[in-house]
């Protein structure tokens, strides 16, 4: 079994920001607390999904709430472990391994803290392969894993149980719980067997994120030079290919809070003005990219924006006029392209009037880059 120690955290973090496609917040505090946990308990076992027994019992773990709140209401090293313990106590089940909601952003790190404190393995993979804003968009419920029984703990160890079987009722219930418990809670949910997990997980995304972060760190510099190593990495992964969508400068970027989400649009114009600008629609994440009114990439495929000079991924809230950026589009894991999954993650689920088409077909019909 692979080990994951604190020396890999910086790479995992930066890889997670890349895969967060503009969302996920700043993982700095999560990185600090994870490092503290790994320093205290030692490296964790990172188990490949295929190595899990079919009857193993696994729970998904992560934070739910407003990332801004955890800038003040800091996480504790015990939050993650206490949540898993509460789950075991309440439901009389021994947890064999823990798995992440989403690899994008801080939620890639929270299961690692729990695994370290409980001396159980963390599963190499997650329920999104990227970042998405709502629970029903995870691969686990889409496959058919029930969200409950679930428990959450808040900052003072207060435990709440959830028993609704309907994911669309679970999502607002848990979000409301977060708001009334200080703004941020830790949730252990979507209990599943090894067999269910193998069928629903986006596999090996933790290892992938560490490798992605390593390439971004070692190849720090012009975004064009990093394209080839990235191409190789994505070619041998559960993702589709990576495509260069656009390079230019941000000429407009504005987001507004609507219904608790950061909604907006960014416009990027080519340096020489020769190409029509690229427009990216944002709802916490970068969801849709258009050139000349024609969609070139849409959710659930990934859109990521890198600083042109340093290849550092840029979050949507940090996107600013005048930044020189390179935009890449990446085919999503095959799971999200099934009809069943698209019911929950297609562009229409985010209010866009567009039927999902894979990036490969959109790119080949668009003007050459």
């Amino acid at each position, binding site marked *: 079994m692979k080990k994951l120690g604190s020396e890999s955290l910086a790479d995992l973090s930066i890889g997670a920001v890349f895969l967060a496609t503009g969302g996920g917040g700043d993982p*700095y*505090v999560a990185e*600090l*607390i994870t490092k*503290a*946990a790994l320093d*205290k308990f030692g490296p964790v076992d990172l188990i490949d999904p295929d190595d899990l027994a079919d009857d193993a019992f696994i729970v998904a773990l992560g934070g739910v*709430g*407003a*990332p*801004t*709140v955890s*800038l*003040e*209401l*800091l*996480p*504790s*090293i*015990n939050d993650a472990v206490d949540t898993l313990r509460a789950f075991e106590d309440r439901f009389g089940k021994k947890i064999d391994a823990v798995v992440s909601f989403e690899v994008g952003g801080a939620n890639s790190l929270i299961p690692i803290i729990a695994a370290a404190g409980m001396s159980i393995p963390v599963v190499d993979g997650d329920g999104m392969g990227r970042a998405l804003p709502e629970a029903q968009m995870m691969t686990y419920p889409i496959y058919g894993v029930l969200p409950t029984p679930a428990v959450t703990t808040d*900052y*003072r*160890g207060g435990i709440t149980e959830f028993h609704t079987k309907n994911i669309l009722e679970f999502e607002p219930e848990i979000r409301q719980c977060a*708001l009334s418990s*200080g*703004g941020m809670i830790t949730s252990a949910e979507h209990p599943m067997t090894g067999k269910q997990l193998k069928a629903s997980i986006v596999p090996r995304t933790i290892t992938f994120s560490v490798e992605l972060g390593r390439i971004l760190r070692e190849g720090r510099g012009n975004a064009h030079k990093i394209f080839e190593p990235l191409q190789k990495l994505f070619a041998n992964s559960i993702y589709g290919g990576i495509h260069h969508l656009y390079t230019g*400068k941000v*000429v*407009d970027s504005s*987001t*507004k*809070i*609507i*219904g*608790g*989400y*950061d909604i907006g649009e960014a416009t990027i114009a080519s340096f020489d003005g020769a190409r029509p600008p690229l427009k990216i629609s944002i709802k*916490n994440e970068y969801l849709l990219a258009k050139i000349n009114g024609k969609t070139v990439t849409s959710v659930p495929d990934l859109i990521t924006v890198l600083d042109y000079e340093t290849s550092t991924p840029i979050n949507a*809230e*940090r996107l*600013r*006029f*005048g*930044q*020189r950026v390179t935009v890449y589009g990446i085919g999503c894991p095959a799971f999200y392209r099934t009809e069943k999954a698209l019911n929950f993650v297609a562009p229409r689920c985010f209010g866009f009037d567009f039927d999902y088409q894979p990036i490969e077909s959109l790119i080949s019909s668009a003007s050459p880059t």
Partner: protein
Amino acid sequence: MRIGIDVGGTHTDAVLVDGDNVISSTKALTSADVTSGILEALESILSDSGVQEDSIEAVMLGTTQFTNAVIERKKLSEVAAIRIGLPSGAGLPPKIGWPEDISHSLGDHGYMVHGGTLYDGRPLAELDWSEINKVIADIKSKNLNTVAISAAFSPMTPQPELDVAAQLRREIPGVNITCSHSLGRLGLLERENAALLNASLLKLADSVVSAFADALRQRGLKCRFFVSQNDGTLMDAEFVRQFPALTFASGPTNSLRGACKLTGLNDAIVVDLGGTTADIGILQGGFPRESNIVIDVGGVRTNFRMPDILSLGLGGGSLVTDEGRSIGPKSVGHNLVTQGLAFGGSVLTATDLLVAAGRATVGPNQCPVTLPPQTIENGLNTIASMLNNGIEKMMPSSDPMPVILVGGGAILVADKLEVASKMYCPEHSGVANAIGAAIAQIGGEVESLVCYQDMPREQAIKKMSDEAISTAINAGANPKTIRIADIEETTISYMAEGTTRLRIKAVGDIPSQGKGAAV
């Protein structure tokens, strides 16, 4: 009349201004002890102008001494850190993530206790006095007399920090305390770091203020003096003794404010070209636009209120390579005057490109510089594109804005920059920083997380504007001259709709003492 002094890493600049007029100015090298350099600069402008000491109304000092103390890890005091936030944050003790050397300079004295509040103002936990008294006893037993206090959501609810501070003062008479809420900004770890750095400078602040007061007295100046903060406003001696860290980055701020004064423009891009860097900032309503991101000071993450400055490795002394296609970031710095080709030296610098192009003359000997025409053309293009790209990154929108050039390296810009609606290079721009110090006003700033659904926007802005105004008056501003200088709103995601971080700043003039011209 007022005197403005700006102590930078290399130069100490001073000006004497009367209303809008610069009477006298000087540029001297910064001395190792700082004070003798200041005295020299004072001597130069006073004797040069023949102005009587008693007609000086006030002296304003901008200084980089506190920044340097942090960067060089020198003259810092040991500090006890008390964070009020348990049960949250266990495992993330104060000073987590700090470089080892500076963490060591402040000593190993971190404490965490229960308390603080939540985003909606409810208590996170009640204060536990037996826990707090144990911490205080331990601090006492270590003979520490400097403490930084932080608490969750203290910018919105400062009471827990104030309660612990009061208890400390009862138990340890004469203790020096920095409360994190007084340095503002959400982001507990970064605000706590800011409080710790500030606390570690309190002793140094005391000696800097005393030395400066002595220097003025020695030169026969009995007027009041102020120190400039990094938001372009002033603090009096007592305030500097409490908040020395608010001087961080006051140099670039003073340049921006000076540029505003020299051109009369309130909204513009300012490029301060020195020997090694070009510092680009934005004037918004006459004040520097502030940065919203985490700022690294000497390797420590802080969220100090700081001007939003983009530093490019381009200055008068920057090395030119690859036939002019590459300039900087390496520079000969202030050795330009001995090493540059135009000064008879042997190093090809950015300044030499302009001299070779016949666009500038420099130095006492005006050495001719001959370069291949292609190198000159490439070089001038490189300078222009570096500045154009840098300025674009800072511009709030694609609308062209006026660009003001200040600093000794301003000669590098030969032609109008593409991104500028108009270019300005005003007289006295070489000492814009000292002018910025001389004209500074007194300010007050408040920040809070508000929900416009609970309190309508106009009402929230009115309430916080009143708070900002009274903060400014308490800091010594003349109530008659106070105005709201800036209102900044940032919306917060994943929270109730309408949740906004609101920041309001008020400014006013220093009260006139009844003689001399008010600026």
